[in-house]
């Protein structure tokens, strides 16, 4: 029977909203990805962790720099000994923006019965992977977490309703929830950065506040060269150079999230 252009446009207009919604459910992120491709000329931040240089001491410095700057509460060693928690509560309430864990946990499924002996118990620095196709953004019912055009997976802690769907969605355990008021557990409050309230989710935001002022993320600055940060879309950026020159691995790449934290082992 055929359909002319005019009718097609009318139909398309009618389907407009529902069509976009259906598309979102079946091919989540595709619309955004297509838009992002056209903006490829812009910035796409990424991080390379050079495990040859990352000693436990360096890693501790990175964590310290990040957590102090961003008012992350310390439930393991509270500033006031009277606030000390049971082992169970420490474990349950812990907030991690950047942390370390052994190879077997960081790269589940990669372990071999016989492997390079240095890998045994090697502590990897872990943080939000700022995925290209982030499941946390896909599941958030209020767009409190969203992906910026430069690749940063952001959190609006004033919009978050605390449903924790993003925590179920994240395959890297990169998100933490404020099970209680975190403020008494912040060793020294940094007045230049907001503290959080009860009942919202938080995570690494790749120091977007520092990037806005032309500075590197705090962990990168504290790492003494073990962390390499830069723009993937720029051919001569340090991250591109590192990725060209070395074999790198990523956490759970087979899930299709396209994580943007790379590891030189």
């Amino acid at each position, binding site marked *: 029977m055929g359909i002319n252009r005019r009718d097609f446009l009318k139909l398309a207009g009618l389907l407009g909203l529902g069509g*976009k*919604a259906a598309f*979102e*459910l079946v091919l*989540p*992120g595709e619309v955004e990805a297509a838009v992002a491709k056209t903006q490829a000329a812009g910035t796409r931040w990424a991080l390379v962790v050079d495990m040859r240089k990352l000693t436990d001491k360096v890693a501790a410095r990175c964590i310290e720099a990040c957590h102090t700057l961003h008012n992350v509460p310390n439930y393991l060693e509270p500033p006031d000994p009277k606030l000390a928690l049971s082992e169970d*509560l420490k*474990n*349950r*309430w*812990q*907030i*991690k923006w950047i942390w370390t*864990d052994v190879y*077997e*946990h*960081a790269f*589940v*499924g990669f372990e071999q019965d016989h492997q390079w002996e240095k890998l045994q118990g090697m502590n990897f620095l872990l943080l939000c992977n700022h995925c290209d196709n982030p*499941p946390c953004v*896909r*599941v*958030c*019912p*209020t*767009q*409190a977490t969203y992906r910026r055009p430069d690749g940063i997976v952001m959190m609006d802690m004033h*919009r*978050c*309703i*605390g*449903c*924790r*769907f993003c*925590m*179920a*969605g*994240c*395959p*890297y*355990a990169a998100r*933490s*929830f*404020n*099970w*209680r*008021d975190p403020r008494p557990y912040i060793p020294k409050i940094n007045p230049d950065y907001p503290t959080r*309230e*009860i*009942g*919202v*989710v938080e995570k690494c935001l790749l120091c977007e506040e520092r990037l806005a002022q032309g500075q590197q993320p705090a962990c990168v600055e504290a790492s003494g060269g073990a962390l390499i940060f830069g723009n993937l879309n720029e051919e001569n950026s340090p991250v591109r150079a590192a990725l060209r020159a070395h074999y790198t691995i990523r956490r*759970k790449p087979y*899930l*299709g*999230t396209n994580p943007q934290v790379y590891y030189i082992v």
Partner: protein
Amino acid sequence: MLEYAFVGTRRYYTLLAVLATLAAVGFLVYLKQLSFGLGITGMSRDVSWGFYIAQFTYLVGVAASAVMVVLPYYLHDYKAFGRVTILGEFLAVAAVTMCLLFIIVDLGRPDRLFNLIKYPTPNSVLFWDMIVLNGYLFLNIICGWLVLEAERNQVPPPKWLKPLILLSIPWAPSIHTVTAFLYAGLPGRGYWLTAIMAPRFLSSAFASGPALLILLALLVRRFTQFDPGREQIQTLAKIVTYAILVNVFFFFCELFTVFYSRIPEHMDHFYYLFYGLQGKGWLVPWMWFSIVGMCIAALLMVSPKIRQNETTLALTCGLIIITTYIDKGLGLISGGFVPNPLHQVNEYMPTVPEILITLGVWATGFLILTILYKVAVSVKEEIRA
């Protein structure tokens, strides 16, 4: 019609008082949760959903199962169910109300609840869940109430109601399908990443919901002048039988895929639930009781003798309710979160305040159910008299 809710026996008022007290206790503990945060529960960084979301999931199933009395009556003109459709619909109203309350008590920031509407987000399954649950609540209140009112006035129900009743039929499985999709689309959670989750949800719902309805019908017969009817109960029993058999079958389909493929990310959750992992596994006896009990109940229901004797039927229905509840209410959420994405085992156990809040929500639901059933039963008694 609501006036029927205010005249009752002493037993009716005692029941209301007990339920109201439990609801009030739950509410007081909830105030504590509001001021301290969800830290008063057993949930954690690794198991970030717990008892509340589990109850929610189970009750969506109970709500959806109302379709098992509505569909035969309206689509197949199975007249006998005319007596019990109202019981199914009012059970759905109470169950969906509990679902919505469980979502609210689980939120970290309930004061921002309306952000769900202010920033509608179609790519989130939770957005669709909100729509289908509220829609289903609305449909069941309208359809149940107006049909009952028409019955009381001995007139046919308004014509415009028919499309709404028909709409409620496909709407029922949709609420449980969407609820399954909350879990079944998450990339890093091997226990939930299965296409059979929505079918399994529906089969367990269509077993446990009608089983609960059978128990409620038996209670109504015992304590009121209204008899929902032996034939009605027997037909419901057949529905329960088919559904529980399908549910057991689906469970073994899942087991086959997971264990024959031997992909650790899918297997480890089953190991945790049924054998324990890294020396931890408090759910192990519960899970074995659940699956063995469910298989036994399915076999018992197949036997006509057991099904036709209302005492053994009631006991078997009780077993089905408990075993499907353990499967969905305890195993599903914990099993999905343990081990965590880094393959660590951090177990979850609900705390006392968490259980009190949960009881409070159940009590609120049963308070609504009692009042609605009282109205329905009074109307039926009046018609008979």
